[in-house]
């Protein structure tokens, strides 16, 4: 019974980490896309 709150914490962390990773990538890509469409230069990467 003691375990459940701990385990739930890990689940939350797991989903948050995944969301952060994918989310960061998506956001950066979308920002890059909009800037390029507007005509700005975005540098080497």
């Amino acid at each position, binding site marked *: 019974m003691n*375990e*459940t709150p*701990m*385990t*739930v914490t*890990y*689940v939350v*962390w*797991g*989903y948050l*980490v*995944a969301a952060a*990773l*994918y989310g960061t*990538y*998506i956001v950066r*890509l*979308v920002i*890059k*896309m909009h800037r*390029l*469409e507007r*005509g700005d*230069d*975005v540098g080497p990467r």
Partner: protein
Amino acid sequence: MAVDADGLKDGDEAPAIRKPNLKLWAGLTALAFLIHIPLALFYAPEDVAQGAAQRIFYIHVPSAWIGFLAFGVVFVCSIALLATSKRKWDDIAAASAEVGVIFTLAVILTGPIWAKASWGIWWTWDPKLTAVFILLCIYLSYLALRQYVAEPLRRARFCAVLGIVGFLDIPIIVMAVSWWRGEHPSSVLVKGGMPHKDLLVLMMGNLTFTLLYITLLKTRIYVNALKRAKQEEVAG
């Protein structure tokens, strides 16, 4: 077929950059996640031994399968590039490698969290996770190679060779790491006999992450095309 100044061939449809229907794909992906996340967090039955930690599985495993798919795409496109020298194969391979790295990174990050929750330790040199980690390293070196070769045709070819070598190495890596950890090779691949509900959520997960992959792939290819056009504009 026009051969562009940098040596890669453009198809007949080349000149205008067509924006893919990202709203459609992004919409489908978002919808899929809206279904999948609740399923994973609430509908899927809890594992007796692992408790709630098992739910990470529904992010971890689809990420792994789709990451693997991404590298399979790199493999096929690499062969196609060497055979035809058409730019589109290099475009798809480059984008797929990058997106694949993101998915694989998700596997490597969620794996230890799941392990810590289930078994109390962060890293156990588990054969599958170790093999995925090596795979990640191979595709990171692919991305590094892309950065360090200036000339487009040469870059495409070099990366294609690495894409082919890397992908063919995967079964050998899996075998070597499994034997190294004392595991019998036959248990390495598919988990047979999953409970009905678990399988359903897993399938939904695979569909969801496939949609995510397609959306990200199309976006990345589009962004790269825009960037290339921009660079030509600046140079010309």
